[in-house]
């Protein structure tokens, strides 16, 4: 089983290396970006260029890093985001943006035809009751609770600047954009940030507040690409240029609604737009349909690979480190505290950190992150297992005349095997949960459903990712409990 997983992993790494002749399209983690990513990759495919769409890789910073590193060739973004957040400038015209991006080997082109500006919104009923129409009005209602997307909360062109410009007295709270609509409906928050092409504005009966001070810049949808793309994929590039001005705001809102409100898969929304099939295929309906969707086996394989490949590496490195720590109390301090550092970094932050470091997204940074998280329980348990052996047994083994290496293999490791296995089990079970985060950087696994479900505010989809992950964690636990029976010597179990 593990050997097969290794093979799978090697294949997926090989696929990554072979991606030279595949156009790699990225997207951010919200509905519109998913749809635009699909439209771009299907357009290239229609022009005869093999294209792959890495869905919902993360927030702007992660996708931009991936583009700089060459893991993807292009992704859809917005002029205001590129200017204010990525380049730190006010201008939003293509010429200025291109000047700013050129040093990175990147460029921006193809205005898709619609703008998607940021705005704040509150429930229509609440807005009427209080008589709030503009952002300036908001300042007079300091009791309103603001729930803003994490990215908006941090962005240069987001909350910090907005708060200054309008002198807003509120303290905003961060929550996932996909969850904010529900939070509004349940009156957990009063004000949220929205994109002007959000399909849910109407559905949730929100009033979009007028940006009366013109704080938000233009957010025209465009393609950000690597400057070598037109040379490498001339046919695809010619086809993509045709998208210039091709999507109107109403059309985009309609597509967002198709995905979010009707549950149509992104690739079908894109196909519907491009008219390739002309007929809408029914999305898998109901919870069971999603739970047992056609991608289940692929996601399971990816998830198992992430968990066990990283675990195998952690055992290979962690056990010797633990032995070393047990041998030398001086080294133990350094080893255990440095192995513990990874644990203090939140998983998403660690992934974001690893992407520029490794120069790639997807499976590799996810494996490295999981490996780092797995080390501590293993190293610590090997260390405590070995140092916990009674001194009289150690003396007995020495007095017998067994050489050091034989003492380790024949006496010390077997006696500590229960503790060691418990450490490996802990790592494995935690890994199953942590591996769901890997979907944020496009490494697949059950997290893909969770991430997409979050972006679409689709609870069923979210659960159809979370439940298999939980079941897998239980299975892994059982698997190790069984293994214990034949790994831990019988004499130690009674």
């Amino acid at each position, binding site marked *: 089983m593990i050997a097969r997983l290794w093979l799978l992993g090697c294949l997926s790494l090989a696929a990554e290396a072979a991606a030279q002749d595949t156009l790699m399209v990225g997207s951010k983690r919200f509905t519109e970006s998913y749809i635009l990513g699909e439209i771009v990759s299907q357009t290239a495919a229609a022009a005869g260029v093999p294209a792959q769409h890495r869905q919902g890789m993360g927030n702007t910073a992660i996708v931009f890093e991936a583009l700089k590193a060459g893991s993807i060739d292009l992704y859809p973004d917005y002029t205001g985001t590129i200017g204010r957040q990525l380049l730190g400038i006010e201008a939003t015209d293509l010429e200025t943006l291109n000047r700013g991006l050129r040093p990175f080997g990147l460029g921006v082109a193809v205005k898709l035809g619609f703008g998607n500006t940021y705005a704040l919104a509150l429930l229509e009923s609440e807005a009427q009751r209080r008589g709030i129409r503009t952002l300036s009005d908001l300042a007079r209602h300091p009791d309103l609770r603001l729930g803003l997307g994490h990215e908006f909360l941090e962005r240069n062109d987001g909350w910090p600047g907005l708060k200054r410009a309008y002198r807003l007295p509120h303290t905003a709270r961060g929550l996932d954009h996909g969850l904010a609509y529900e939070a509004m409906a349940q009156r957990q928050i009063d004000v949220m940030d929205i994109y002007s092409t959000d399909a849910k504005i109407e559905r949730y009966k929100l009033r979009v507040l007028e940006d009366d001070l013109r704080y938000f810049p233009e957010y025209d949808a465009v393609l950000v690409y690597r400057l070598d793309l037109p040379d490498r994929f001339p046919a695809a590039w010619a086809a993509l240029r045709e998208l210039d001005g091709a999507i109107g705001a109403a059309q985009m809102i309609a597509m967002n609604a198709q995905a979010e409100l009707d549950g149509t898969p992104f690739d079908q929304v894109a196909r519907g737009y491009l008219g390739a099939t002309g007929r809408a295929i029914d999305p898998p309906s109901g919870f069971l349909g999603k739970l047992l969707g056609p991608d289940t086996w692929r996601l399971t394989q990816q998830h198992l690979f992430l968990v066990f490949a990283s675990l195998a590496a952690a055992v290979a490195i962690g056990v010797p480190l633990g032995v070393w720590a047990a041998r030398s109390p001086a080294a133990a301090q350094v080893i255990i505290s440095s192995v513990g550092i990874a644990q203090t970094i939140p998983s998403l932050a660690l992934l974001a950190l690893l992407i520029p470091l490794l120069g790639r997204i997807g499976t590799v940074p996810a494996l490295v992150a999981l490996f780092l998280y797995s080390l501590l329980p293993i190293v610590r348990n090997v260390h405590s297992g070995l140092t916990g052996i009674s001194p009289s047994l150690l003396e007995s083994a020495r007095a017998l005349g067994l*050489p050091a290496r034989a003492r380790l293999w024949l006496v010390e490791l077997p006696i500590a095997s229960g503790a060691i296995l418990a450490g490996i089990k802990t790592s494995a079970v935690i890994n199953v949960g942590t591996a769901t985060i890997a979907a944020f950087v496009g490494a697949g696994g059950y997290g893909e459903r969770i991430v997409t479900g979050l972006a679409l505010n689709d609870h069923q989809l979210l659960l159809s990712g979370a439940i298999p992950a939980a079941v897998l964690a239980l299975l892994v636990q059982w698997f190790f409990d069984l293994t214990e029976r034949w790994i831990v010597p019988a*004499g130690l179990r009674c």
Partner: protein
Amino acid sequence: MLALQDVSKSIHGQPVLHRTNLAFPTARTTVVIGPSGCGKTTLLRLMLGLTAPDTGTVVFDGETVTPRSAQALRRRIGYVIQAGGLFPHLSARRNVTLLALHLGRPRAQVDRRVDQLAEVVQISPDMLDRYPSALSGGQRQRVALMRALMLDPPVLLMDEPLGALDPMIRHDLQTDLVEIFAKLGKTVVLVTHDMHEAAHFAHEIVLMREGRVLQRGSLEDLLARPADPFVTEFVRAQRADPRLAQP
């Protein structure tokens, strides 16, 4: 066979053994006795090379015990510690054969030796397939003795071999051990704090106190010609209750 020449040892700046000269004659049983902390366990550890002397040398069969030579020499010294020190993850049989098989001795030869030793220490062979946790204290000590005797070493060191046993088992094993020592003709060094045990086993007794040898001789010597008032005190204290006195 085994000798300490001018050996001393301090642990954490505290002297546990003052400069000592001791020789243990071949094929004789010498009992080292004294109150707790008198340095008798340190003496054994020095002889096995488990700890290095601060001064002087330990000589085994004409060879100086050094950290380099110790490992090979230990295979020619059988060692039985207080609670047996059996490895809990191995069956009694595996405990006995561990080193021999690791050294690549032929399986058949090893098995023959196990049968032979089982007879010597009076343990039923099917007990050997049990794990130590499923054996009684006395059985564990018999297995530990088998393990120590496996490679047929000329010297046997025993650290309180009967210390953890209940009185009945203790008596049986004590009787058996004397027979075994006599039959095998080993050089035995046995450490204890129990005068009855010493009287039972010893050709010669070495009485220690606070890192020094106070007297060496037979039980009669210790009783009749004590070298120090403490010798009389120590022997008396243990024989104070006449009901416990040996018949």
